[in-house]
Protein backbone atom coordinates (compact mmCIF):
# COMPACT_ATOMS: atom_id res chain seq x y z
CA UNK A 1 0.00 0.00 0.00
CA UNK A 2 1.58 3.27 -1.12
CA UNK A 3 1.69 5.98 1.49
CA UNK A 4 0.33 9.38 0.57
CA UNK A 5 3.22 11.64 -0.41
CA UNK A 6 1.98 14.74 1.36
CA UNK A 7 1.27 14.21 5.02
CA UNK A 8 -2.26 15.05 6.03
CA UNK A 9 -2.49 18.25 8.07
CA UNK A 10 -3.03 17.17 11.65
CA UNK A 11 -6.37 18.68 12.37
CA UNK A 12 -7.29 19.61 15.90
CA UNK A 13 -10.73 18.32 16.74
CA UNK A 14 -12.62 19.92 19.56
CA UNK A 15 -15.45 18.20 21.38
CA UNK A 16 -18.17 19.73 19.22
CA UNK A 17 -16.31 18.57 16.13
CA UNK A 18 -15.14 21.83 14.60
CA UNK A 19 -11.90 21.26 12.81
CA UNK A 20 -9.25 23.94 12.86
CA UNK A 21 -7.16 23.99 9.69
CA UNK A 22 -5.40 27.16 8.73
CA UNK A 23 -5.52 28.35 5.17
CA UNK A 24 -8.11 25.83 4.00
CA UNK A 25 -11.67 27.10 3.64
CA UNK A 26 -13.96 24.97 5.82
CA UNK A 27 -16.11 22.40 4.10
CA UNK A 28 -19.48 21.36 5.46
CA UNK A 29 -19.23 18.55 7.96
CA UNK A 30 -21.36 16.07 6.00
CA UNK A 31 -18.93 16.45 3.09
CA UNK A 32 -15.82 16.18 5.27
CA UNK A 33 -17.00 12.88 6.77
CA UNK A 34 -17.86 11.56 3.32
CA UNK A 35 -15.62 8.93 1.77
CA UNK A 36 -15.80 6.28 -0.94
CA UNK A 37 -17.42 3.73 1.39
CA UNK A 38 -20.22 6.12 2.33
CA UNK A 39 -20.90 6.96 -1.31
CA UNK A 40 -20.90 3.27 -2.21
CA UNK A 41 -23.30 2.50 0.65
CA UNK A 42 -25.64 5.29 -0.46
CA UNK A 43 -25.60 4.05 -4.05
CA UNK A 44 -26.26 0.44 -2.96
CA UNK A 45 -29.11 1.52 -0.70
CA UNK A 46 -30.62 3.72 -3.39
CA UNK A 47 -30.45 0.92 -5.96
CA UNK A 48 -31.96 -1.65 -3.61
CA UNK A 49 -34.74 0.64 -2.44
CA UNK A 50 -35.68 1.69 -5.95
CA UNK A 51 -35.57 -1.93 -7.14
CA UNK A 52 -37.94 -3.16 -4.43
CA UNK A 53 -40.21 -0.15 -4.89
CA UNK A 54 -40.27 -0.69 -8.65
CA UNK A 55 -41.29 -4.33 -8.28
CA UNK A 56 -44.53 -3.15 -6.69
CA UNK A 57 -45.26 -0.88 -9.65
CA UNK A 58 -44.31 -2.95 -12.69
CA UNK A 59 -44.86 -6.41 -11.10
CA UNK A 60 -42.58 -8.54 -13.30
CA UNK A 61 -44.08 -11.81 -12.10
CA UNK A 62 -45.67 -13.78 -9.30
CA UNK A 63 -43.22 -14.51 -6.45
CA UNK A 64 -45.10 -17.73 -5.64
CA UNK A 65 -45.48 -19.05 -9.20
CA UNK A 66 -43.83 -22.48 -9.49
CA UNK A 67 -42.32 -24.03 -12.55
CA UNK A 68 -41.40 -27.65 -11.94
CA UNK A 69 -39.53 -27.90 -15.23
CA UNK A 70 -37.20 -25.06 -14.23
CA UNK A 71 -36.44 -26.38 -10.72
CA UNK A 72 -33.00 -25.59 -9.24
CA UNK A 73 -31.84 -23.46 -12.17
CA UNK A 74 -28.49 -21.87 -11.21
CA UNK A 75 -28.08 -18.10 -11.57
CA UNK A 76 -26.91 -16.49 -14.84
CA UNK A 77 -27.78 -19.53 -16.99
CA UNK A 78 -31.37 -19.18 -18.06
CA UNK A 79 -32.28 -15.63 -19.20
CA UNK A 80 -35.86 -16.23 -18.01
CA UNK A 81 -34.55 -16.63 -14.46
CA UNK A 82 -31.55 -14.27 -14.12
CA UNK A 83 -30.78 -15.29 -10.54
CA UNK A 84 -31.99 -18.87 -10.89
CA UNK A 85 -34.84 -20.71 -9.21
CA UNK A 86 -35.47 -22.57 -5.95
CA UNK A 87 -36.45 -26.20 -5.40
CA UNK A 88 -40.02 -25.63 -6.64
CA UNK A 89 -38.90 -23.54 -9.59
CA UNK A 90 -39.85 -20.13 -8.24
CA UNK A 91 -37.99 -17.15 -9.69
CA UNK A 92 -35.38 -16.07 -7.13
CA UNK A 93 -34.96 -12.52 -8.44
CA UNK A 94 -38.68 -11.80 -8.09
CA UNK A 95 -38.76 -13.44 -4.66
CA UNK A 96 -35.71 -11.46 -3.54
CA UNK A 97 -37.34 -8.19 -4.59
CA UNK A 98 -40.61 -9.00 -2.86
CA UNK A 99 -38.76 -10.17 0.24
CA UNK A 100 -36.78 -6.94 0.33
CA UNK A 101 -39.97 -4.93 0.06
CA UNK A 102 -41.42 -6.65 3.13
CA UNK A 103 -38.15 -6.23 5.05
CA UNK A 104 -38.02 -2.50 4.35
CA UNK A 105 -41.74 -2.10 5.09
CA UNK A 106 -41.34 -3.75 8.49
CA UNK A 107 -38.04 -2.00 9.23
CA UNK A 108 -39.41 1.46 8.52
CA UNK A 109 -42.91 1.16 10.03
CA UNK A 110 -41.68 -0.58 13.19
CA UNK A 111 -38.93 2.01 13.59
CA UNK A 112 -41.47 4.85 13.29
CA UNK A 113 -43.82 3.28 15.84
CA UNK A 114 -41.02 2.24 18.21
CA UNK A 115 -39.41 5.68 17.95
CA UNK A 116 -42.61 7.54 18.77
CA UNK A 117 -43.38 5.29 21.75
CA UNK A 118 -39.78 5.16 22.98
CA UNK A 119 -39.19 8.91 22.69
CA UNK A 120 -42.50 9.72 24.38
CA UNK A 121 -41.80 7.36 27.29
CA UNK A 122 -38.17 8.53 27.52
CA UNK A 123 -39.24 12.19 27.68
CA UNK A 124 -41.85 11.38 30.34
CA UNK A 125 -39.25 9.39 32.30
CA UNK A 126 -36.60 12.08 32.22
CA UNK A 127 -38.89 15.09 32.53
CA UNK A 128 -41.41 13.94 35.13
CA UNK A 129 -38.95 11.74 37.07
CA UNK A 130 -40.43 10.28 40.28
CA UNK A 131 -42.62 7.16 40.23
CA UNK A 132 -43.46 7.43 36.50
CA UNK A 133 -39.75 7.26 35.75
CA UNK A 134 -39.38 4.28 38.10
CA UNK A 135 -42.25 2.38 36.44
CA UNK A 136 -41.08 3.04 32.87
CA UNK A 137 -37.45 2.18 33.68
CA UNK A 138 -38.58 -0.99 35.47
CA UNK A 139 -40.67 -2.20 32.53
CA UNK A 140 -37.78 -1.49 30.16
CA UNK A 141 -35.40 -3.40 32.42
CA UNK A 142 -37.73 -6.41 32.66
CA UNK A 143 -38.13 -6.48 28.89
CA UNK A 144 -34.40 -6.21 28.27
CA UNK A 145 -33.83 -9.11 30.69
CA UNK A 146 -36.06 -11.42 28.65
CA UNK A 147 -34.40 -13.13 25.68
CA UNK A 148 -36.27 -11.35 22.90
CA UNK A 149 -36.43 -14.33 20.56
CA UNK A 150 -38.32 -16.34 23.21
CA UNK A 151 -40.65 -13.42 23.89
CA UNK A 152 -41.30 -13.16 20.15
CA UNK A 153 -42.09 -16.88 19.83
CA UNK A 154 -44.55 -16.70 22.72
CA UNK A 155 -46.26 -13.56 21.39
CA UNK A 156 -46.50 -15.10 17.90
CA UNK A 157 -48.23 -18.14 19.44
CA UNK A 158 -50.76 -15.96 21.30
CA UNK A 159 -51.54 -13.43 18.59
CA UNK A 160 -50.85 -15.50 15.48
CA UNK A 161 -48.25 -15.03 12.78
CA UNK A 162 -49.20 -11.99 10.76
CA UNK A 163 -47.49 -8.94 9.35
CA UNK A 164 -49.14 -6.72 11.97
CA UNK A 165 -47.89 -8.90 14.83
CA UNK A 166 -44.40 -8.88 13.35
CA UNK A 167 -44.38 -5.09 13.06
CA UNK A 168 -45.70 -4.84 16.63
CA UNK A 169 -42.97 -7.16 17.90
CA UNK A 170 -40.28 -5.22 16.08
CA UNK A 171 -41.61 -1.97 17.53
CA UNK A 172 -41.72 -3.60 20.96
CA UNK A 173 -38.04 -4.50 20.68
CA UNK A 174 -37.28 -0.87 19.77
CA UNK A 175 -38.81 1.31 22.46
CA UNK A 176 -36.50 0.51 25.44
CA UNK A 177 -33.43 1.46 23.38
CA UNK A 178 -34.90 4.92 22.76
CA UNK A 179 -36.44 5.46 26.18
CA UNK A 180 -33.04 4.88 27.84
CA UNK A 181 -31.11 7.23 25.58
CA UNK A 182 -33.82 9.91 25.57
CA UNK A 183 -34.27 9.70 29.34
CA UNK A 184 -30.55 10.34 29.88
CA UNK A 185 -30.49 13.26 27.45
CA UNK A 186 -33.60 14.85 28.97
CA UNK A 187 -32.29 14.43 32.51
CA UNK A 188 -29.22 16.50 31.67
CA UNK A 189 -31.01 18.98 29.37
CA UNK A 190 -33.71 19.89 31.88
CA UNK A 191 -31.09 21.37 34.23
CA UNK A 192 -29.48 23.47 31.51
CA UNK A 193 -29.75 27.24 31.72
CA UNK A 194 -31.92 27.71 28.64
CA UNK A 195 -34.53 25.30 29.98
CA UNK A 196 -34.41 26.82 33.46
CA UNK A 197 -34.74 30.27 31.88
CA UNK A 198 -37.71 29.19 29.78
CA UNK A 199 -39.40 27.80 32.89
CA UNK A 200 -38.67 31.01 34.80
CA UNK A 201 -40.31 32.97 31.99
CA UNK A 202 -43.46 30.92 32.57
CA UNK A 203 -43.23 28.46 29.65
CA UNK A 204 -45.51 25.46 29.96
CA UNK A 205 -44.20 21.89 30.15
CA UNK A 206 -45.57 21.21 26.67
CA UNK A 207 -43.75 24.26 25.32
CA UNK A 208 -40.47 23.29 26.99
CA UNK A 209 -40.71 19.72 25.72
CA UNK A 210 -41.62 20.55 22.13
CA UNK A 211 -39.55 23.71 21.67
CA UNK A 212 -36.50 23.13 23.86
CA UNK A 213 -36.04 19.44 24.58
CA UNK A 214 -37.11 17.62 21.40
CA UNK A 215 -35.05 19.79 19.00
CA UNK A 216 -32.00 19.09 21.13
CA UNK A 217 -32.42 15.32 21.06
CA UNK A 218 -33.31 15.11 17.36
CA UNK A 219 -29.75 14.23 16.32
CA UNK A 220 -29.29 11.11 18.48
CA UNK A 221 -32.84 10.01 17.60
CA UNK A 222 -32.10 10.27 13.89
CA UNK A 223 -28.91 8.21 14.26
CA UNK A 224 -30.66 5.61 16.42
CA UNK A 225 -33.51 5.37 13.90
CA UNK A 226 -31.13 4.70 11.01
CA UNK A 227 -29.30 1.97 12.90
CA UNK A 228 -32.62 0.59 14.12
CA UNK A 229 -33.98 0.02 10.60
CA UNK A 230 -31.01 -2.27 9.95
CA UNK A 231 -31.44 -3.98 13.32
CA UNK A 232 -35.13 -4.69 12.65
CA UNK A 233 -34.45 -6.04 9.19
CA UNK A 234 -32.05 -8.48 10.87
CA UNK A 235 -34.60 -9.30 13.58
CA UNK A 236 -37.37 -9.89 11.04
CA UNK A 237 -35.22 -12.15 8.92
CA UNK A 238 -34.15 -14.06 12.05
CA UNK A 239 -37.74 -14.61 13.14
CA UNK A 240 -38.78 -15.59 9.60
CA UNK A 241 -35.82 -17.96 9.49
CA UNK A 242 -37.08 -19.62 12.70
CA UNK A 243 -40.55 -19.88 11.13
CA UNK A 244 -42.33 -17.32 13.31
CA UNK A 245 -42.06 -14.32 11.01
CA UNK A 246 -43.29 -14.01 7.44
CA UNK A 247 -45.03 -17.27 6.53
CA UNK A 248 -44.35 -19.15 3.28
CA UNK A 249 -45.20 -18.97 0.44
CA UNK A 250 -44.88 -15.19 0.94
CA UNK A 251 -41.16 -14.57 0.40
CA UNK A 252 -38.96 -13.00 3.04
CA UNK A 253 -35.18 -13.15 3.01
CA UNK A 254 -35.29 -15.03 6.29
CA UNK A 255 -37.61 -17.80 5.14
CA UNK A 256 -35.83 -18.00 1.76
CA UNK A 257 -32.52 -18.66 3.56
CA UNK A 258 -34.28 -21.30 5.62
CA UNK A 259 -35.81 -22.88 2.47
CA UNK A 260 -32.45 -23.34 0.82
CA UNK A 261 -30.69 -25.04 3.75
CA UNK A 262 -31.82 -28.55 2.79
CA UNK A 263 -30.46 -28.27 -0.75
CA UNK A 264 -27.33 -26.29 0.16
CA UNK A 265 -24.89 -28.97 -1.09
CA UNK A 266 -26.50 -29.13 -4.56
CA UNK A 267 -27.93 -25.60 -4.95
CA UNK A 268 -25.84 -23.08 -3.03
CA UNK A 269 -27.60 -20.03 -4.51
CA UNK A 270 -31.03 -20.49 -2.88
CA UNK A 271 -29.78 -19.66 0.64
CA UNK A 272 -26.73 -17.66 -0.32
CA UNK A 273 -28.38 -15.02 -2.53
CA UNK A 274 -30.91 -13.82 0.08
CA UNK A 275 -28.13 -13.96 2.69
CA UNK A 276 -25.97 -11.74 0.47
CA UNK A 277 -28.88 -9.37 -0.17
CA UNK A 278 -29.46 -9.14 3.56
CA UNK A 279 -25.77 -8.47 4.24
CA UNK A 280 -25.60 -5.83 1.52
CA UNK A 281 -28.68 -3.98 2.75
CA UNK A 282 -27.79 -4.02 6.45
CA UNK A 283 -24.17 -3.10 5.72
CA UNK A 284 -25.28 -0.15 3.59
CA UNK A 285 -27.65 1.04 6.31
CA UNK A 286 -24.97 0.51 8.99
CA UNK A 287 -22.39 2.48 7.03
CA UNK A 288 -24.80 5.36 6.51
CA UNK A 289 -25.73 5.24 10.21
CA UNK A 290 -22.06 5.55 11.13
CA UNK A 291 -21.62 8.44 8.74
CA UNK A 292 -24.69 10.19 10.13
CA UNK A 293 -23.35 9.72 13.65
CA UNK A 294 -20.04 11.31 12.71
CA UNK A 295 -21.75 14.16 10.88
CA UNK A 296 -24.12 14.92 13.75
CA UNK A 297 -21.37 14.15 16.28
CA UNK A 298 -23.47 12.13 18.69
CA UNK A 299 -22.31 9.22 20.80
CA UNK A 300 -25.03 6.60 20.45
CA UNK A 301 -25.45 3.18 18.90
Amino acid at each position, binding site marked *: *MAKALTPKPTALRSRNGTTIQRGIPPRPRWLREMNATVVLAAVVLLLMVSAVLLVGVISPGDPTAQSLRARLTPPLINPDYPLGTDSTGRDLLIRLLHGGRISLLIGITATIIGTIVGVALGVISGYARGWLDEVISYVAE*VQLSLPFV*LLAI*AVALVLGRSLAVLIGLAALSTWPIYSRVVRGEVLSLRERDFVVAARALGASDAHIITRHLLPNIAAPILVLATINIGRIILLESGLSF*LGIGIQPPTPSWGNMISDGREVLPVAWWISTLPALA*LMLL*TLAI*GTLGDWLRDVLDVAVG
Partner: protein
Amino acid sequence: MTGVNLARFLAFRLLRTLLTLLGVVALTFILGRLTGDPVALMLPQQATLEDYNRMRAALGLDQPVAVQFVRYLEGLTRGDLGRSIIFQRPAAEVVAERIPATLALGAPALLLSVVLGVPLGMWSAYQRNRLLDRLIAGLSLAGQSLPSFAIAIVLILVFSVTLRWTPTFGSDTWRHYILPTITLTLYPLAIIIRLTRSSMLEVLNQGYMRTAAAKGLSDRFRATNHALPNALIPVVTVIGLQVAAIISGAAIVEAVFAWPGLGTLAVGSIGGRDYPVIQTIVLISAAAFGIANLLVDLAYFAIDPRIQTAGRG
Protein backbone atom coordinates in the same frame (compact mmCIF):
# COMPACT_ATOMS: atom_id res chain seq x y z
CA MET B 1 -15.05 4.09 48.20
CA THR B 2 -15.47 2.63 51.64
CA GLY B 3 -16.56 -0.89 52.37
CA VAL B 4 -19.83 0.24 53.93
CA ASN B 5 -20.81 2.19 50.83
CA LEU B 6 -19.88 -0.70 48.60
CA ALA B 7 -21.94 -3.11 50.69
CA ARG B 8 -24.96 -0.79 50.66
CA PHE B 9 -24.61 -0.29 46.92
CA LEU B 10 -24.40 -4.04 46.34
CA ALA B 11 -27.44 -4.69 48.51
CA PHE B 12 -29.39 -2.07 46.57
CA ARG B 13 -28.34 -3.55 43.23
CA LEU B 14 -29.16 -7.08 44.38
CA LEU B 15 -32.64 -5.97 45.45
CA ARG B 16 -33.19 -4.33 42.09
CA THR B 17 -32.05 -7.45 40.26
CA LEU B 18 -34.44 -9.59 42.33
CA LEU B 19 -37.32 -7.19 41.59
CA THR B 20 -36.53 -7.39 37.88
CA LEU B 21 -36.44 -11.19 38.07
CA LEU B 22 -39.86 -11.16 39.78
CA GLY B 23 -41.20 -9.07 36.90
CA VAL B 24 -39.66 -11.47 34.38
CA VAL B 25 -41.17 -14.48 36.17
CA ALA B 26 -44.64 -12.90 36.30
CA LEU B 27 -44.53 -11.86 32.65
CA THR B 28 -43.35 -15.29 31.50
CA PHE B 29 -45.98 -16.99 33.64
CA ILE B 30 -48.85 -14.98 32.19
CA LEU B 31 -47.57 -14.94 28.61
CA GLY B 32 -46.91 -18.69 28.75
CA ARG B 33 -50.46 -19.42 29.84
CA LEU B 34 -51.84 -17.21 27.08
CA THR B 35 -50.08 -19.27 24.40
CA GLY B 36 -52.41 -22.24 24.76
CA ASP B 37 -53.28 -25.44 26.51
CA PRO B 38 -50.57 -28.10 26.90
CA VAL B 39 -53.12 -30.78 27.86
CA ALA B 40 -55.05 -30.44 24.62
CA LEU B 41 -51.77 -30.84 22.70
CA MET B 42 -50.68 -33.92 24.63
CA LEU B 43 -53.84 -36.00 24.78
CA PRO B 44 -54.60 -38.40 21.92
CA GLN B 45 -57.54 -37.68 19.59
CA GLN B 46 -59.85 -40.24 21.21
CA ALA B 47 -59.42 -38.87 24.77
CA THR B 48 -62.63 -38.01 26.59
CA LEU B 49 -63.48 -34.80 28.38
CA GLU B 50 -63.07 -36.75 31.63
CA ASP B 51 -59.48 -37.67 30.73
CA TYR B 52 -58.87 -34.06 29.87
CA ASN B 53 -60.19 -32.76 33.18
CA ARG B 54 -58.33 -35.41 35.17
CA MET B 55 -55.07 -34.49 33.49
CA ARG B 56 -55.59 -30.77 33.99
CA ALA B 57 -56.26 -31.36 37.67
CA ALA B 58 -53.18 -33.58 37.97
CA LEU B 59 -51.02 -30.78 36.55
CA GLY B 60 -52.73 -28.17 38.72
CA LEU B 61 -53.89 -26.30 35.62
CA ASP B 62 -57.56 -26.35 36.72
CA GLN B 63 -56.83 -23.71 39.35
CA PRO B 64 -57.21 -19.97 38.65
CA VAL B 65 -54.04 -18.43 37.20
CA ALA B 66 -53.50 -16.32 40.33
CA VAL B 67 -53.53 -19.46 42.51
CA GLN B 68 -51.16 -21.21 40.11
CA PHE B 69 -48.83 -18.23 40.25
CA VAL B 70 -48.76 -18.11 44.05
CA ARG B 71 -48.09 -21.86 44.14
CA TYR B 72 -45.28 -21.38 41.62
CA LEU B 73 -43.72 -18.59 43.69
CA GLU B 74 -43.99 -20.77 46.81
CA GLY B 75 -42.16 -23.51 44.94
CA LEU B 76 -39.48 -21.05 43.81
CA THR B 77 -38.69 -20.07 47.41
CA ARG B 78 -38.05 -23.78 48.10
CA GLY B 79 -35.97 -24.07 44.93
CA ASP B 80 -38.72 -26.07 43.18
CA LEU B 81 -39.11 -24.96 39.56
CA GLY B 82 -42.01 -27.27 38.76
CA ARG B 83 -42.30 -30.43 36.67
CA SER B 84 -41.91 -30.53 32.91
CA ILE B 85 -45.27 -31.35 31.31
CA ILE B 86 -43.69 -33.04 28.28
CA PHE B 87 -40.84 -34.92 29.97
CA GLN B 88 -42.66 -35.68 33.24
CA ARG B 89 -39.53 -34.83 35.21
CA PRO B 90 -38.48 -31.83 37.30
CA ALA B 91 -38.08 -28.85 34.96
CA ALA B 92 -34.80 -27.94 36.68
CA GLU B 93 -33.40 -31.34 35.69
CA VAL B 94 -34.52 -31.07 32.07
CA VAL B 95 -33.02 -27.60 31.76
CA ALA B 96 -29.82 -28.40 33.67
CA GLU B 97 -29.00 -31.19 31.20
CA ARG B 98 -28.98 -28.67 28.36
CA ILE B 99 -26.94 -25.95 30.07
CA PRO B 100 -23.46 -27.43 29.39
CA ALA B 101 -24.07 -27.52 25.61
CA THR B 102 -25.09 -23.86 25.50
CA LEU B 103 -22.36 -22.85 27.93
CA ALA B 104 -19.82 -24.65 25.76
CA LEU B 105 -20.72 -22.23 22.96
CA GLY B 106 -21.59 -19.11 24.93
CA ALA B 107 -18.62 -18.99 27.31
CA PRO B 108 -15.93 -19.25 24.61
CA ALA B 109 -17.89 -16.74 22.51
CA LEU B 110 -17.95 -14.19 25.33
CA LEU B 111 -14.32 -14.87 26.27
CA LEU B 112 -13.08 -14.65 22.67
CA SER B 113 -14.99 -11.47 21.98
CA VAL B 114 -13.40 -9.74 24.98
CA VAL B 115 -9.89 -11.19 24.62
CA LEU B 116 -9.77 -10.40 20.90
CA GLY B 117 -12.06 -7.37 20.85
CA VAL B 118 -10.30 -5.11 23.36
CA PRO B 119 -6.76 -5.42 21.89
CA LEU B 120 -8.07 -5.15 18.31
CA GLY B 121 -10.07 -2.06 19.22
CA MET B 122 -7.03 -0.49 20.93
CA TRP B 123 -4.77 -1.33 18.04
CA SER B 124 -7.29 0.10 15.61
CA ALA B 125 -7.47 3.35 17.58
CA TYR B 126 -3.67 3.72 17.61
CA GLN B 127 -3.58 3.04 13.86
CA ARG B 128 -6.35 5.52 13.22
CA ASN B 129 -7.23 5.94 9.54
CA ARG B 130 -4.37 3.74 8.39
CA LEU B 131 -5.06 0.68 6.29
CA LEU B 132 -5.21 -1.66 9.29
CA ASP B 133 -7.72 0.53 11.10
CA ARG B 134 -9.93 0.75 8.03
CA LEU B 135 -9.75 -3.01 7.62
CA ILE B 136 -10.68 -3.71 11.24
CA ALA B 137 -13.39 -1.02 11.17
CA GLY B 138 -14.89 -2.47 8.00
CA LEU B 139 -14.85 -6.03 9.29
CA SER B 140 -16.37 -5.04 12.62
CA LEU B 141 -19.13 -3.05 10.93
CA ALA B 142 -19.80 -6.15 8.86
CA GLY B 143 -19.82 -8.35 11.96
CA GLN B 144 -22.36 -6.08 13.55
CA SER B 145 -24.56 -5.81 10.45
CA LEU B 146 -24.68 -9.43 9.39
CA PRO B 147 -27.28 -11.82 10.75
CA SER B 148 -25.79 -14.79 12.58
CA PHE B 149 -27.80 -17.37 10.63
CA ALA B 150 -26.71 -15.91 7.29
CA ILE B 151 -23.08 -16.05 8.46
CA ALA B 152 -23.70 -19.63 9.57
CA ILE B 153 -25.07 -20.59 6.15
CA VAL B 154 -22.06 -19.08 4.38
CA LEU B 155 -19.64 -20.77 6.82
CA ILE B 156 -21.37 -24.14 6.32
CA LEU B 157 -21.26 -23.65 2.56
CA VAL B 158 -17.55 -22.87 2.54
CA PHE B 159 -16.11 -25.07 5.30
CA SER B 160 -18.54 -27.98 5.46
CA VAL B 161 -19.98 -28.38 1.98
CA THR B 162 -17.10 -27.19 -0.21
CA LEU B 163 -13.93 -27.80 1.80
CA ARG B 164 -15.37 -30.60 4.00
CA TRP B 165 -13.25 -29.48 6.97
CA THR B 166 -16.07 -29.33 9.50
CA PRO B 167 -19.33 -31.22 10.00
CA THR B 168 -22.57 -29.39 9.14
CA PHE B 169 -24.46 -29.98 12.38
CA GLY B 170 -24.52 -31.92 15.64
CA SER B 171 -22.19 -31.73 18.66
CA ASP B 172 -20.24 -34.98 18.83
CA THR B 173 -16.59 -33.99 18.32
CA TRP B 174 -14.51 -30.85 18.85
CA ARG B 175 -14.84 -30.14 15.13
CA HIS B 176 -18.55 -29.61 15.67
CA TYR B 177 -17.81 -26.68 17.98
CA ILE B 178 -15.82 -24.61 15.49
CA LEU B 179 -18.53 -23.13 13.26
CA PRO B 180 -21.20 -22.47 15.93
CA THR B 181 -18.63 -20.78 18.18
CA ILE B 182 -17.37 -18.57 15.37
CA THR B 183 -20.93 -17.68 14.41
CA LEU B 184 -21.87 -16.77 17.96
CA THR B 185 -18.64 -14.80 18.58
CA LEU B 186 -18.80 -12.45 15.59
CA TYR B 187 -21.55 -10.11 16.78
CA PRO B 188 -20.27 -9.40 20.33
CA LEU B 189 -16.70 -9.25 18.98
CA ALA B 190 -17.69 -6.59 16.45
CA ILE B 191 -19.53 -4.55 19.08
CA ILE B 192 -16.60 -4.66 21.51
CA ILE B 193 -14.02 -3.73 18.84
CA ARG B 194 -16.09 -0.75 17.70
CA LEU B 195 -16.72 0.51 21.19
CA THR B 196 -13.13 0.05 22.39
CA ARG B 197 -11.89 1.92 19.32
CA SER B 198 -14.21 4.92 19.72
CA SER B 199 -13.72 5.02 23.48
CA MET B 200 -9.95 4.84 23.06
CA LEU B 201 -9.94 7.66 20.49
CA GLU B 202 -11.89 9.81 22.92
CA VAL B 203 -9.37 9.10 25.71
CA LEU B 204 -6.29 9.67 23.53
CA ASN B 205 -7.44 13.26 22.99
CA GLN B 206 -7.60 14.01 26.71
CA GLY B 207 -5.23 16.40 28.43
CA TYR B 208 -3.87 13.80 30.87
CA MET B 209 -2.60 11.74 27.95
CA ARG B 210 -0.56 14.70 26.76
CA THR B 211 0.66 15.28 30.32
CA ALA B 212 1.74 11.65 30.58
CA ALA B 213 3.61 11.94 27.29
CA ALA B 214 5.25 15.19 28.46
CA LYS B 215 6.42 13.41 31.64
CA GLY B 216 8.31 11.04 29.37
CA LEU B 217 6.33 7.90 30.19
CA SER B 218 6.78 5.14 27.62
CA ASP B 219 4.18 4.48 24.95
CA ARG B 220 3.40 1.09 26.40
CA PHE B 221 2.98 2.44 29.94
CA ARG B 222 0.72 5.24 28.75
CA ALA B 223 -1.39 2.80 26.77
CA THR B 224 -1.91 0.23 29.51
CA ASN B 225 -1.91 2.45 32.63
CA HIS B 226 -3.47 5.69 31.43
CA ALA B 227 -5.50 5.10 28.31
CA LEU B 228 -6.90 1.61 28.77
CA PRO B 229 -8.48 1.94 32.24
CA ASN B 230 -10.32 5.07 31.16
CA ALA B 231 -11.34 3.66 27.82
CA LEU B 232 -12.61 0.42 29.35
CA ILE B 233 -15.49 1.86 31.35
CA PRO B 234 -18.05 2.03 28.50
CA VAL B 235 -16.65 -1.24 27.14
CA VAL B 236 -17.33 -3.05 30.40
CA THR B 237 -20.94 -1.86 30.32
CA VAL B 238 -21.43 -3.27 26.88
CA ILE B 239 -19.84 -6.60 27.82
CA GLY B 240 -22.71 -7.03 30.30
CA LEU B 241 -25.21 -6.40 27.51
CA GLN B 242 -23.46 -8.96 25.31
CA VAL B 243 -24.50 -11.72 27.71
CA ALA B 244 -28.10 -11.05 26.67
CA ALA B 245 -27.08 -10.87 23.00
CA ILE B 246 -25.32 -14.23 23.26
CA ILE B 247 -28.30 -15.88 24.99
CA SER B 248 -30.68 -14.61 22.31
CA GLY B 249 -28.19 -15.38 19.55
CA ALA B 250 -27.77 -18.93 20.85
CA ALA B 251 -31.44 -19.67 20.12
CA ILE B 252 -30.86 -18.96 16.42
CA VAL B 253 -27.37 -20.46 16.15
CA GLU B 254 -28.55 -23.65 17.89
CA ALA B 255 -31.44 -23.90 15.43
CA VAL B 256 -29.05 -23.67 12.46
CA PHE B 257 -26.58 -26.24 13.77
CA ALA B 258 -29.18 -28.50 15.46
CA TRP B 259 -27.30 -27.92 18.71
CA PRO B 260 -28.81 -29.70 21.74
CA GLY B 261 -28.72 -26.65 24.03
CA LEU B 262 -31.09 -24.33 25.85
CA GLY B 263 -32.11 -22.54 22.65
CA THR B 264 -33.52 -25.62 20.91
CA LEU B 265 -35.11 -26.74 24.18
CA ALA B 266 -36.77 -23.34 24.59
CA VAL B 267 -38.13 -23.28 21.05
CA GLY B 268 -39.47 -26.84 21.46
CA SER B 269 -40.96 -26.10 24.88
CA ILE B 270 -42.83 -23.06 23.64
CA GLY B 271 -44.22 -25.21 20.82
CA GLY B 272 -45.37 -27.86 23.31
CA ARG B 273 -46.58 -25.26 25.87
CA ASP B 274 -44.29 -26.81 28.48
CA TYR B 275 -44.70 -23.84 30.85
CA PRO B 276 -42.41 -24.98 33.69
CA VAL B 277 -39.50 -25.56 31.30
CA ILE B 278 -40.01 -22.22 29.50
CA GLN B 279 -40.24 -20.41 32.81
CA THR B 280 -37.06 -22.06 34.05
CA ILE B 281 -35.11 -21.19 30.90
CA VAL B 282 -36.27 -17.57 30.92
CA LEU B 283 -35.54 -17.29 34.63
CA ILE B 284 -32.02 -18.66 34.15
CA SER B 285 -31.32 -16.34 31.19
CA ALA B 286 -32.63 -13.32 33.08
CA ALA B 287 -30.61 -14.30 36.15
CA ALA B 288 -27.48 -14.69 34.02
CA PHE B 289 -28.12 -11.24 32.58
CA GLY B 290 -28.70 -9.78 36.06
CA ILE B 291 -25.53 -11.37 37.46
CA ALA B 292 -23.53 -10.13 34.46
CA ASN B 293 -24.72 -6.59 35.12
CA LEU B 294 -23.88 -6.89 38.81
CA LEU B 295 -20.37 -8.02 37.86
CA VAL B 296 -20.15 -5.05 35.52
CA ASP B 297 -20.93 -2.73 38.42
CA LEU B 298 -18.26 -4.42 40.51
CA ALA B 299 -15.81 -4.11 37.64
CA TYR B 300 -16.31 -0.34 37.69
CA PHE B 301 -14.80 -0.32 41.17
CA ALA B 302 -11.81 -2.31 40.05
CA ILE B 303 -11.20 -0.01 37.09
CA ASP B 304 -11.97 3.31 38.70
CA PRO B 305 -12.51 3.52 42.47
CA ARG B 306 -13.69 7.12 42.14
CA ILE B 307 -16.90 6.15 40.40
CA GLN B 308 -19.80 7.41 42.43
CA THR B 309 -22.35 4.70 42.90
CA ALA B 310 -25.07 6.74 44.59
CA GLY B 311 -26.33 8.25 41.35
CA ARG B 312 -26.30 5.04 39.37
CA GLY B 313 -29.12 2.62 39.49
